[in-house]
């Protein structure tokens, strides 16, 4: 598909009438968010292609803000009557004087991401073939591979935002994602390997053998873990792998930098703008405009253009992540981080693609300096309490480091610690930068996010394993 300006989902005239109605009983701000999403998913399991599923939704959410309070209503459908009813519902709790919206700006929008082949135009049979190829490649990795599950998902999300501040902007987002899970068994041991591939791209993402390589990698992880022993327990140096290892930074720092947490006194980074929280070599960004990355969008879900925001510069907190509301409260510019799962949700500050910038060391350098430690290659996921800074991560692939060398694989260990000390203890970052895809949950909303980094070393972190001694 050639790059083209995004088409608005509703006419500016209709948007203006809806905003007018939304402010009929007063309010400082009104917004209508329209969305049209469609998607297709399919999976292979037991070497059988199954769970083919197609779906689509169209709807809108209208919000009216008055003082500290936001009134919100949403509806399925984008007809004028639907939108008017929703505007009335959002306004119904107010009892003030009509306020007037500003005229809407000319239809605008970002330059769209390059999509070479619209996945919706690719016949479903080819998607089935892709899944079969993944299944075969994973099974060919070794006789101990007993199960392969692979899932393919494509989705297109068109949005239009109009607000009483005159914003009128649209975006058109296409994403493709593949996930492969492999189970291997030998002598009573059962292990799983999981690998994903995803981007703000079209069908071209999975072409040319990349999908099959993803399946093979998942199989290799499962096979390697069959020889795994117990993970160590206790405090030790931890080397974290590149790519999805970045979820560690996402959880332990990214969430605490989301301005809503900070403003509610629920972040360990509150009041630390400009303060040294990490060693001077550490630089990190949130970048919603990275070309074709999984968490990339042209505008956020409030119509603010996405941007690259330095969150840590030379070890100091450089910026929080803002939506319109939090930015107004702090009297700063919004950073394009106002995101929502769908038209049924209110926007809140969210990460896009968050990453630690590459350092100069090699991954080998980081490991060579460790006498007794743990090497966490990748994670199954993690969780943080932004208020206390306590976090926990489940490792999906981990090894023991002994005498500066990676020695043996370890079964599912958990890393546990506190953000401030773990961040301060990052003593080296390697140059093997990579981005990976994930979904982030917050306030009941799930959005696609990218995480990335090269290998990173934390001089001391608690590993929770089963080997106590």
């Amino acid at each position, binding site marked *: 598909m050639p790059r083209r300006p995004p088409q608005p989902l509703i006419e500016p005239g209709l948007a203006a009438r809806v905003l007018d109605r939304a402010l009929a009983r007063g309010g400082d701000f009104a917004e209508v968010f329209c969305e049209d999403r469609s998607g297709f998913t*399919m999976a292979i399991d*037991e070497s*059988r*292609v*199954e*769970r*083919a*599923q*197609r*779906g*689509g*939704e*169209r709807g809108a959410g209208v919000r009216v803000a008055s*003082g*500290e*309070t*936001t*009134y*919100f209503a*949403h*509806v*399925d459908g984008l007809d004028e009557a639907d939108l008017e009813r929703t505007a009335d*519902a*959002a306004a119904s*709790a107010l009892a003030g004087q009509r306020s007037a919206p500003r005229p809407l700006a000319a239809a605008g929008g970002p330059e769209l991401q390059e999509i070479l082949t619209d996945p919706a135009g690719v016949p*479903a*049979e080819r998607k*089935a073939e892709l899944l079969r190829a993944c299944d075969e490649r994973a099974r060919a990795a070794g006789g101990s591979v*007993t199960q392969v599950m692979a899932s393919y998902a494509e989705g297109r999300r068109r949005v239009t935002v109009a607000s009483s501040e005159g914003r009128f902007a649209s975006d058109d987002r296409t994403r493709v994602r593949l996930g492969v899970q492999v*189970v291997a068994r030998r002598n009573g041991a*059962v*292990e*799983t390997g999981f690998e994903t591939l995803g981007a703000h791209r079209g069908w071209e993402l999975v072409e040319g053998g990349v999908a099959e390589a993803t399946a093979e990698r998942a199989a290799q992880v499962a096979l390697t873990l069959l020889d795994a022993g117990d993970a160590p*327990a*206790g405090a030790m140096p931890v080397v974290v792998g590149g790519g999805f290892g970045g979820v560690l930074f996402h959880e332990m720092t990214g969430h605490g930098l989301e301005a809503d947490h900070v403003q*509610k*006194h*629920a972040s360990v980074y509150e009041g630390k703008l400009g303060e040294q929280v990490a060693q001077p070599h550490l630089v990190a960004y949130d970048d919603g405009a990275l070309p074709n990355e999984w968490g990339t969008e042209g505008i956020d879900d409030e119509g603010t253009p996405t941007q690259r925001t330095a969150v840590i510069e030379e070890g100091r907190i450089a910026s929080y992540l803002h939506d319109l509301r939090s930015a107004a409260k702090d009297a700063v510019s919004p950073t394009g981080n106002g995101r929502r799962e769908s038209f*049924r949700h*209110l926007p809140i500050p969210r990460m896009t693609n968050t990453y630690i910038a590459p350092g100069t060391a090699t991954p080998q350098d980081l490991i060579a300096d460790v006498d007794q430690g743990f090497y966490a290659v990748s994670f199954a*996921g*993690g969780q943080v*309490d932004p*208020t*206390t800074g*306590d*976090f926990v*991560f*489940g490792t*999906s692939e981990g090894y023991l480091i002994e005498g500066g060398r990676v020695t043996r694989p370890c*079964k*599912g260990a*958990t890393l*546990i610690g*506190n953000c401030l000390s773990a961040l301060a203890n990052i003593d080296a970052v390697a140059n093997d930068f990579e981005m990976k895809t994930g979904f982030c949950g917050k306030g009941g909303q799930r959005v696609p996010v990218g995480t990335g980094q090269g290998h990173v070393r934390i001089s001391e972190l*608690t590993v*929770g*394993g*089963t080997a*106590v001694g």
Partner: protein
Amino acid sequence: MTPAADLEALAEQAAESALAAGAGDAEAAVQDSTGREIRVFDGQVESLTEAGERGLGVRAWIDGRVGFAYGTDLSGDGLADVAADAVEAARVVDPDEHAAAPAPSDDAGRAGDPGVYHDAQVGAMPTPEKIGLAKAIERHAREADHRVAGVETTVYVDEEVRWALCSSTGLRGFYEASFAYAYAQVIAADNGSKQTGLGFGLGRSPVALDPEAIGREGAERAVQLLGASKPASRNCPVVLDPTVAASFAGFVGGVLCADEVQRGRSPFADRLGEEVASDVLVLTDDGTDPEGMASAPIDGEGLARGRTTLIGRGRLSAYLHDSYTARRDGGARSTANAARSGYRSAPSVSTSNLILGPGGASLEELLAGAGDGVYVTDVAGLHSGVNPVSGQFSVGASGVLVEGGELGTAATEFTIASDLVSMLSAVSAAGAEARWVPFGGSVKSPPLLIAEMAIGGS
């Protein structure tokens, strides 16, 4: 909301459209729900959401192939489009000899009253009163203890939902349900230590919620952890509070679903009739418990919901089935555990309400039984920390050390590790007081004393 007869007519029309589009059999389920969410911060309404949702999902079968599609356009053309998408989806998958539309003969029981899980007070209570309830939770949290520094979020949610289902094989059903819940995330601070605690309550309507109890629980949980330190790594007895026990029970219920079992992805595969837990443990799935938030007269395929004993006196006695897994199993019957999380998802095997049988011990007796151990009041990272295939887990935890059978100092930043079968086998006592917990599904659980688990700390 849309009248029952209209929803039933829409489901019937959609199923017929799928047959017209080429399906051998078809089933349509229509959902219509309304609800509201109120968020309060610092004594003010932060947001008030009026939510309505209406959509349908269609399954189409063609010669052992099944496809699913969903949409929100309920016009005649909209229904036809969704039906055609479902048929097209069925055409691209591989055939499966067990894939077939559920039929009335799959039904083991008689569906209950369609309205018994609905409380009209959800809709009747005016919104300002619900706002008052949310504000009261926040106020009670603040007043509960002088060390409460703030309340990060206070949320009230309610929903009324109607489902109508129609299949070409003759299954038809309608029911309505309601629920309300509220929670508060409370922050406590003292002497440089900062901790958070969650208080929650749930019921069929806001009338069932006690704002003082919810606020106080959040405050008490946060205050209890103040001054916490990292415990030493060791193996020791552990007492799980009901919320933590429920989270683990939810995980166990998940791997007792027959689809995971049949595909060899459950630590309980091929273990029917075997001892998988200590004899004090009884685990039941009950889709009709009047207090259970997952209760309904019918499941997601239109079959009458019922009660299934999963683990009785330590022995694995059943798996949870839908019509597909029952057919694949040969001798089994659907336990009517097909669930839909909404019209956007195809039905799949899931727990309904899990009930962990209570024992006779008070919490004090469980702590005394632990001697020197840990009382775990919260776990984090359950989804990333448990391997559902092997059952091995290592999850983050916080709580209070048990010293000489009594609560001592608070502990955070540690992990508890074991595997599901070892943990269930090490349950040495269950508490008498059980509680409904909305984590990991809908679970009713007492506190549990586990004889030994690995603690990973300093």
